[in-house]
Each structure stands twice: as structure tokens, then as C-alpha cells.
């Protein structure tokens, strides 16, 4: 069989498979077609490759998941979208709760105190560390604070925690238990270590 090499070009036989599968174009195609016209051995090779291609295409194909696979994909896409929606709502809920609680702080500030003070400047304060559920409203948090004589002295932290002070002499464990029982409003309660 002839190897029609010209300069740095590859042997024309290496292009033959791509003529056979119909993807060869431009100067490559012209070069191979010229070779076919002048070289019967190259033409025979092209015919053999065509038969090999046909034989490969005729091989039994594995059964793919087909419509079951599509159903699985759609299910996972739905789950992913649902999870994204939930995350967005949680973020939005968290923001609303944070705003609500900040407002609650303003409402329950002790008389004479004109602005909220971050307890980071007073690390000794804070009897309880509390996280409210993402959907907590201003009214609910305000009621909770007032009904239990609690005062927010710090928060929210980066992860949404608030430090609360209780009235002097109050039973800290009892208040913590009471807050823990309010599961629709309070996510977690912890006592100082």
C-alpha cells in the first residue's frame, strides 16, 4: 500500500478512517480522494474500513436506562430545586428573624438606655445562649422576652445565636427548660459552661 507523505503531513492512510466516516473536509479530503484515484490498494483499504465500520455499528448495543434514566434525572433535578428553595427560605427567614429580634431589642431596652449595646464589649453578660427558629416573628420574640423577663445582651452572632440575661435571682434552669419547650419558636438553648 502506498504511503503518500508530503513534507510534514501524516500518511494518507491515517486520514482514510475519517473519509470513510464522512467527516473529512477541505485539503485533507482532497488529498485522500486524490490518493484513492491513483492507488487501487488505498481504495481497497477504504472499502475494508467501510466494512469494519459497518460491522462495528452492527454490534449489539447495551440497553441504556432510557426513559427510566430521564425520570431519575428529573427526580434529582426536582430535589435539587427544592433544596435550593428551602435554603433560600431559610436565609430569608433568618434575615427576617434577625431584623425582628433587633427591633425587639430596641423595644425592651432598659429605661434610660438610648441605644443597643453589643455585649461583645461586656463579655461577662449573658445567662443563656439561644437560637430562634428561622421563621420567628418580631411579635413572638417580643412576647417571649417580656413574658420571661429576658433581655437580649448580644447577638445575633454569625450563626444566629443570641445571649440573653435573666432577672436577678431567677431560676436559670427552669427558664432554660421553659424555652426549650417552645420548639415552634426556639431552636436551641444552652447554659453558660
Amino acid at each position: 500500500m502506498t504511503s503518500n507523505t508530503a513534507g510534514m503531513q501524516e500518511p494518507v492512510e491515517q486520514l482514510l478512517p475519517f473519509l470513510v466516516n464522512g467527516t473529512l473536509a477541505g485539503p485533507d479530503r482532497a488529498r485522500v480522494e486524490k490518493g484513492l484515484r491513483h492507488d487501487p490498494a488505498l481504495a481497497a483499504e477504504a472499502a475494508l474500513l467501510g466494512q469494519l465500520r459497518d460491522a462495528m455499528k452492527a454490534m449489539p448495543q447495551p440497553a441504556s436506562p432510557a426513559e427510566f434514566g430521564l425520570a431519575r434525572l428529573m427526580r434529582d433535578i426536582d430535589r435539587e430545586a427544592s433544596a435550593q428553595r428551602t435554603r433560600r427560605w431559610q436565609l430569608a427567614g433568618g434575615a427576617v428573624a434577625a431584623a425582628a429580634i433587633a427591633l425587639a431589642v430596641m423595644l425592651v431596652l432598659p429605661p434610660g438606655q438610648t441605644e443597643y449595646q453589643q455585649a461583645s464589649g461586656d463579655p461577662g453578660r449573658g445567662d443563656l445562649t439561644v437560637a430562634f427558629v428561622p421563621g420567628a416573628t418580631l411579635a413572638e420574640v417580643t412576647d417571649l422576652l417580656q413574658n420571661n423577663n429576658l433581655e437580649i445582651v448580644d447577638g445575633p452572632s454569625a450563626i444566629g445565636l443570641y445571649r440573653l440575661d435573666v432577672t436577678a435571682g431567677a431560676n436559670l434552669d427552669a427558664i432554660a427548660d421553659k424555652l426549650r419547650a417552645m420548639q415552634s419558636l426556639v431552636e436551641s438553648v444552652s447554659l453558660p459552661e
Partner: protein
Amino acid sequence: MKRIASGDRGAFAQLYREMESPLYRFVSSRLNDQQRSSDITHDVFLQVWRDAGAFEGRSKVRTWLFAMAYRKVVDVYRRENRLVFGEDVPESADESPNPEACVLAMENRDAVRQCLETLSPSHRAAIELTFMEDMSYPEVAEITGVPEGTVKSRVFHAKQLLLRCLSTKLGMKRDDQ
């Protein structure tokens, strides 16, 4: 792809129905494992759904999908310490096989399959993309991440090895009779 990027599930389903079977065939041929082939095909389409907006149209969608699948298969090979795709099995001499014997052997589909299985992963991927998926050499190069010249060389050698194997198969069959 623009429709898919905008969340059009109908367009996504249409692409899936067009491309799932060849993609699965390609993956399955590399892994020979039905469950994992399904999982990789699934992962490719899930990635298409997520990243459709990032598709820039510099290559065909089909090439993009096959390239993703190929990379995932290579990852499986690497995890399992199988022969890595870039490592070619040493070539023996490319003497020409008997064409008539090859044509007769091609009639036996099992023989064609068995001979394909004797090829190295890189040779097999190259010739299957060329003859089963009818891809151009630039497309095969893009999918397998090698230079175009390497693709042409791989397909040429794969073809030689296949024909020689088929020629041998016919000889063995005649010996059995």
C-alpha cells in the same frame, strides 16, 4: 443549550433522548459495568442541566457531553488503578492482515466485540468514536484530550490491530472445524 440554561425541561428531555443512548454506549464500552455506566451518564446530564449556561458553543454539544463522560471514566480508571487512558499498549509491527479473512470474520459480531476488547483503552476509544459515533479527528482529540496527530495515529493502529485480530479469529475458527 440556551433553552436548557433557562430551565426548559422539554429541551433538556429532548437532548437526553438524542444523546443518552450513544453516551451510555460509549461509557459502557469503557467500564463494562451497567450500574456505573448508568451513574456516569446520569452525572453527565445532571452537569449539563447545572452548567448549560456556561456552554460557550465553541464545540458541538455532542463533543462537550462525550468529553465530560470521558473525563469521568478516566477518573474511575485512576481511582481503581486501571490502565490509564494515556498509556498505550506497545505496538507490534503493522503488517497488513489478510483482507478477505477480515471481511469474513466481521460477519461474526462476537468476533468483532472480542477483538475490540483486546485493544488498549485509548485505541478502543479512538476507533469507537471514529466508527461508531462518526466523529471527526478534531472532535476525538477534544474529547480524549490528545493532539489531533495522536488521534489519527491511534485510529490507524487500532484499525491495524483489529484487522489482524479478526484475521486470526477466522483462522482459529477454521482450525476448530
